[in-house]
Structures are given as C-alpha cells and as structure tokens.
C-alpha cells in the first residue's frame, strides 16, 4: 500500500480548468444521464462528444438540455438551474419540479458533477455554505444532487488561495452530504473517495510524495487497490 510513482498515470503539468473539464467528459460512460452543477462543472458540456450520447438533466425540469442559447434562440422559458438560457435537443422532455427532483433523488442519474469547498477522506461534501457568521444561507438543489446521483464527481482546485488542501480529514465547512462523493477531479490529481479513504488515480505535474505532503489524509495509489484502469464508471 506504499506510494509508488510507477503505479499511476502522471502528466507533466497541472491541468487547467478546460483540460480538467475535458478529462471529466472523457470519463463519462456512453449513454449516461448527467447533471452538471453551476460553475466549473458546466464546462464539461463543452467536451462531451456526440458519440457519447450523454443526456443532460437540469433540475428545474428538463432532460435533453442542449448548449447555452445565443441570439434569437434565447427563450426566457427555457433556462437551466443557473438561470442561463439554454437550448433543447431532439428527444428532450419537460416535467415539473417534483418529478425532476424525483429523477435525482430516486437514484436515476448516473453522474452529478459538482464544485466544492471541501471533500473529506470518506467522501463528505461541503459546497453549500461557508458557515461564516452573518452569511445568509442558500442551498438550492445542492443537497439533493449530492445525495441522489449514483456517482458524485467533484471538480475543484486542490488548494485554496491560501494554500490549504480542500481534501480534508473532516469538513470544517457545513456539509452538503455525507459520504456521497465518489471521485474528485483537481488541477493536481484525480482522487477516488469512499468508505476506505482516498485513492489517487492520476497526478498532474506532481509526484505522489509531493501530493501527500499537500493533502492531510493518507493517500493510496490506484494500482494498490486495483483501480488503475477505472477511467470510466
């Protein structure tokens, strides 16, 4: 179970936001039903290919969401969960809010991709509230997304602006869901999280030893647990 550099994939440099989005997109299995959270996860849609045949869900009531609308295609009645005008693809469907959240809460989505403040070693997610005194809380669909999807992927930078790891032993921010995150995509590495702790699938411009120095929880290398080739769910 020791960290060995040769047991996992590596690349020369940290990944930018778009490279990371491309990687997440590539990891989504063909035919999947996916919900992309507001912010960085939205970038993933730019890299999904037609061959993948991915269906996007937006929790305000639609399956088969297309790209952001521009020009004459903008229709105020057709928006995504971030309230951005979007388009409709052939084979789309509309439904009311309870039916839409039933899709999510009933475990029918294959993957949900979310941003995060922190992810704990066992997959607890904190992404809804800083907990700062006086801050007005707002949760939206974050807790439903965290709890409902079969797989919850997080996209974030590994470190805060102050240099602290966002992968933590236990979340210090208020949690959104308990033990829900299955995979964390960061600029420096991809992590698999679960009841057994954190496994590193690949690193970007950093050695495993250097990574372990940044992250305050024990890291396992993917090969050690037979996950080398698990690039897609």
């Amino acid at each position, binding site marked *: 179970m020791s960290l060995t550099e040769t047991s996992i994939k590596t690349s020369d440099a940290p990944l930018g936001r778009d490279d990371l989005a491309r990687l997440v997109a590539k990891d989504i299995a063909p035919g999947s039903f996916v919900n992309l959270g507001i912010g960085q996860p939205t970038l993933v849609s730019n890299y999904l290919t037609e061959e993948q045949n991915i269906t996007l869900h*937006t*929790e*305000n*009531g*639609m399956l088969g969401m297309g790209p952001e609308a521009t020009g004459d295609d*903008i*229709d*105020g*009645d*057709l*928006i*995504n969960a971030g*309230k951005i005008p979007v388009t*409709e693809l052939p084979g789309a469907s*509309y*439904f*009311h*809010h*309870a039916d*839409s*959240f*039933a899709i*999510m*809460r009933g475990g029918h989505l294959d993957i949900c991709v979310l941003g995060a403040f922190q992810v704990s070693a066992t997959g*607890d997610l904190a992404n809804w*509230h800083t907990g700062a005194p*006086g*801050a*007005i*809380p*707002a*949760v*939206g*669909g*974050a*807790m*439903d997304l965290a*709890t*409902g999807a079969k797989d919850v992927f997080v996209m974030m930078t590994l470190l805060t602006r102050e240099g602290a790891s966002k992968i933590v032993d236990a979340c210090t921010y*208020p*949690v*959104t*869901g*308990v033990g829900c995150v299955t995979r964390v995509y960061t600029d420096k590495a991809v992590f698999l999280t679960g009841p057994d702790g954190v496994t590193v699938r690949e690193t970007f411009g950093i050695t495993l030893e250097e990574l372990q120095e940044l992250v305050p929880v024990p890291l396992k290398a993917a090969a050690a647990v037979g996950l080398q080739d698990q690039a897609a769910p």
Partner: protein
Amino acid sequence: MLNFVDSVQAAVAGIKDGSTVMIGGFGNAGQPFELIDALLDCGATDLTVVNNNAGQGDQGLALLIKEGRVKKMICSFPRQSDSWHFDAKYKAGEIELELVPQGNLAERIRAAGAGIGGFFTPTGYGTTLAEGKETRFLDGKWQVFETPIHADVALIKALKADGKGNLVYRKTARNFGPIMAAAAKQTIVQVADIVPTGALDPENVVTPGIYVNTVVKVAGSGSAAEKAA
C-alpha cells in the same frame, strides 16, 4: 368552483392577511409577475411566502418583502446577487427564513397536494438543515422526516387554460406550477391564452382543472423572454 376573472386585481382580491401564499416560478421562467404585482397592490400582509427564491431586484416578491408584508419565507435559495431587500430584512431580524433543500421543497409541496402526512428522504441527512429532525435508517440509508407544506393560495403562471381550468405550461416555466396548484386551497393562475374546452388534448393536460380555482388572462405573459425584453 372555477372562476374566470377579468383582472389580476380581481383574481387576488380574496387573499387574506396571514395567508400562506405559494408563488410559482424558477428564475423568471414561470413567475406570475402580474399576479404578484396585484398581491402587492391589494395590501394583504403578514404573509408566509413559499417560492424557490426570496425576491430579486426591485420587483415582485422583492417589493413585497421590502414593504414588510412577508413575515416568513420558505425557500431554497434566498441569497442572490440582487436579493438586497430580503438580505436587509433578514439581517434586521424582520423576516423569518425556513431554508429547505430544493428537492425537499418540491417533494413537501407535492406531499401536501397528494395527502401525504410526512415522508423520509436521504436529502439533508447529517447537515445543519436536518438538525432536530427525526431520522431513520431505511432502504440502506439514513433518512430525515419531512412534512408537507400546505398553502392557502397559490399564484402560478401557465401557458393556456381551457374552459374547465385544465392547464398546459411552456418548457422549463412549468417548474413549481403543477405541484403548487395541487397543494393550495385556492389556486390562481395567469395564462397567456384561454382556449375553448376540448382544444387541449386530454393526453397532454399537465394540471387538471380540479386543481384550479381562478383563471385570469394576462396578454403577453406566455414567455418570460417577452417580460425580460
């Protein structure tokens, strides 16, 4: 009994002080702007409002809050870049907030309409929003007990109504409309168009007329795009 009225003022005239009022819409899509404006004008106060948000900018629900007519908000996402009226009231301790995960909000509204006295859901388990709530291990997961949200009145927007009050919606403007219509004692709907009974295909009716009490036609309210333009 189903009524068709000629003005949004007449539509909201029966709303009493102290009512719980559900307001449809997610963002601008499906917001019954004209009914909200009429509610502001009619003077009803001490309201509990159920909406996904807590008002934006200087219109509609935000103005109701600014004028001190809302004693409590039940919503999932009050804080936005332009929710200044809510923010001010909240920080001044002048408005109560029940913050509800969006899926719980939808399911609790649905439960009210469907006669469900309460339900267990995994959403929110282990979070501060479930503090003090009953929990139970069911279907292999810890779940939280949630109760229905009933309302005296629902204000919603649909695309069309027929003579029986059957409704169809448009795209993602459907959102909370159908479940709020079922959860409220009185459902008041603004539509872009009223069509003859029989003009809606029975296969495609989204809200059956049994859930509708008052219909008012508001010209040009079919698309939020038109409102925004």
